[in-house]
């Protein structure tokens, strides 16, 4: 299917008249002090509407992704030719200047059929410049021909068919530049979140066939220093019911919460730390009293009360969709019932 699509697009591209260089990634756009107004100026895609990447733009996915109101996500990485990211066992890889991480958020008309009638909403771009990372959001037009920079963010009204088959309508929020940093911050600096060894250490269905992403990145020359996948850290796919409940819950919290809730993150002052490697039970929330939760406490005394999800603030805030209560604070307006069920099971089984 993907091969067919790509072939079709190739023809279109030829007709439009781009030469070979028309679809090369623009390092000028990536390194520019002022971001391009249009997404197409980066040259990431040979066909944006179908999310077909240009040469040098590698698709990837995460074992356990962030929940963003059921959005489908298309992720890509571009590392400048001849350079490579440096492997790190725990943190996001150290990418060279000129790198771009690209993530498109899209919604199918029916959430039960994620491949059909997909509408692109926004593409977020993290570019690595000399001064550090910059984060930009581009919102797609109705015709899906172009996406335009929105520094102040945007609101998009959506109406789809939900996973339960019922109509689901809500206002999707495209983050403004500062909100990007609300999550993408480590010690106050903008930083990527997804491309960590443990989250990339899974197979990806490349056009050439399925392959482990760490191995593929290494073979493509965009990652250096990676051990063999078997020797690199890994996390389960959080929805994999064959995996242990605790590991599934902890990888979900790692991805959905620990960007802020870690010692170096925006929620460091809470004392609640949910990174995959966190060992201190109180820091994870077990028997931990809230500090600045306000009404986010939901009249509950502990972040996690083992065996009692309904006495646990963690569940209250993950279930809520109310500003000032819900966690994460931004990035969603909907509750993910499957995640709630998993966390509930985890806390219930906790002794």
């Amino acid at each position, binding site marked *: 299917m993907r091969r067919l699509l790509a072939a079709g697009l190739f023809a279109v591209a030829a007709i439009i008249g781009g030469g070979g260089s028309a679809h090369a990634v623009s390092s000028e756009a990536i390194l520019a002090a002022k971001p391009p107004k249009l997404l197409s100026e980066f040259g990431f895609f040979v066909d944006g509407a179908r999310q077909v990447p240009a040469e040098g733009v590698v698709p990837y996915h995460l074992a356990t992704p962030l929940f963003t109101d059921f959005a489908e996500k298309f992720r890509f990485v571009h590392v400048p030719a001849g350079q490579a990211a440096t492997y790190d066992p725990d943190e996001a890889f150290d990418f060279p200047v000129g790198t771009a991480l690209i993530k498109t958020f899209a919604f199918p008309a029916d959430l039960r059929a994620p491949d059909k009638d997909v509408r692109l909403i926004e593409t977020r771009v993290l570019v690595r410049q000399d001064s550090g990372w910059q984060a930009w959001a581009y919102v797609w037009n109705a015709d899906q021909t172009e996406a335009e920079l929105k*520094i*102040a*963010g945007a*609101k998009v009204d959506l109406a789809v068919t939900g996973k339960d088959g019922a109509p689901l309508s809500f*206002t999707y*929020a495209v983050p*403004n*530049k*500062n*909100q990007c*940093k*609300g999550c993408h*911050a480590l010690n*106050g600096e903008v930083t990527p979140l997804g491309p960590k060894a443990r989250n990339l250490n899974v197979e990806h269905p490349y056009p050439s066939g399925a392959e482990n992403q760490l191995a593929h990145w290494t073979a493509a020359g965009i990652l250096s220093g990676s051990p063999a996948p078997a020797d690199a850290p890994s996390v389960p796919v959080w929805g994999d019911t064959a995996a242990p409940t605790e590991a599934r819950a902890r990888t979900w919290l790692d991805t959905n919460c620990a960007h802020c809730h870690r*010692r170096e993150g*925006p929620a*460091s*002052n809470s*004392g609640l730390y949910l990174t995959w490697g966190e060992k201190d039970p*109180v*820091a994870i929330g077990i*028997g*931990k*009293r*809230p*500090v*600045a*939760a*306000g*009404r*986010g*406490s*939901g*009249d*509950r*005394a*502990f972040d996690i009360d083992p065996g009692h999800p309904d006495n646990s*603030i963690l569940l209250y805030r993950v279930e809520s969709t*109310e*500003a*000032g*209560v819900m966690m994460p*604070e*931004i990035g969603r*307006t909907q509750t993910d019932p499957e995640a709630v069920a998993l966390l509930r099971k985890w806390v219930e089984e906790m002794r």
Partner: protein
Amino acid sequence: MQRLLPIATLTLALATSTALAADIAVEAGEGANERLIEALISAQPGDTVKIGPGRFEFTEGLSLDVDDVKVQGAGAGQTVLSFKGQTGAGEGLLVTSDRVVLEDFAVEDTKGDGVKSKGSDQITFRNLSVVWTGGPKAENGAYGVYPVSSKNVLIDGVFVSGASDAGIYVGQSEDIVVRNSRAEYNVAGIEIENSKRADVTKNTVTHNTGGILVFDLPNLPVQGGQDVRVFDNDVVENDTPNFAPKGNIVGIVPKGMGVMVMANRNVHVFGNRFDKNGTAHVLIAAYPNEYDDDNYMFVPRGVYVHGNTYGEGGFAPDGEVGKIITDVSGTPVPDIVWDGVTRIPEYFSWVNAEDQVYIDEAEGTTFANLKMISQMLLPWSTSPDTDISGYKGSLPEPAPVKLPQDNGA
């Protein structure tokens, strides 16, 4: 060299002038929401974002991440940022950069906290108003003015009302001045928590559940709150029933608390005017909950209360804490109450001079040491120690807090 110098100076002057402060004006009206968000994002160091008079309605939180920016309204009664329709973010305005001044505007009805700074150095909140317009309600946001993990914090002339935790809350910060401010109808008027070197002075705290709290809590990245001076404040008629959502530590504060010092070090309470606080004017207490934290000191160390004036008080002791106190002290509750909790080894030996509680007040001031057993909130005996003269003494006062943005070094 001498010829070169003027040229170099000129170049420097030119360079400075090109980068000189610009005003970014944001007036009310069509698209003001988006224009203000953009102004806060695109501001350059040195700029002033000037928000015009009028009402601004927001559906998202605002944030500022640029150093050396002033955000200035036309006055707290003129420029009103309303977050009544907010659907996202944990606060109204979040500042994460250094040397920022926020002044002369009002923030209303945020879903979470009002105005927050995280990790800022030299942050100033001046002549702000942060209000939940529906009055005291558990659904209101937790904190009004909320610097956390910050350094050199100046809060001057702010007004906060309706916070379901603390009106003015300074947490895990260093070098703090809170002055000339008014906090009313909050659970706590002003709270200094897990922070070092704070001066809280010339504020009026009234009609809160509790007036001024100086706390230290366990299981936080910054602990060891110390060197706090609470002086020359009016702490009167704190009489709003506690409306904090359960689970929050301020939920323990009884209605009618004046100043409460819990598990902190070197706290000086002096020159304040206490009146009509129904539970007690001053309470000195240990952290009452169980905790798991080897680095935490749960009893207050080195508290010096002196030269305050005490009007009527202790006439309506409230809640669980009120009952625990009156079970020992009787009613009316004395002006100053210490739970008397000491660490067990110290109970059988002695407490170092710098760790003791000292009280030096005018004739007629009443006092009780409840002599509670550690962590159990049960008395050793049913007879408190009410002999105030036994606590005479003093502690060296911390130096006044000096802030770089306040003509201090």
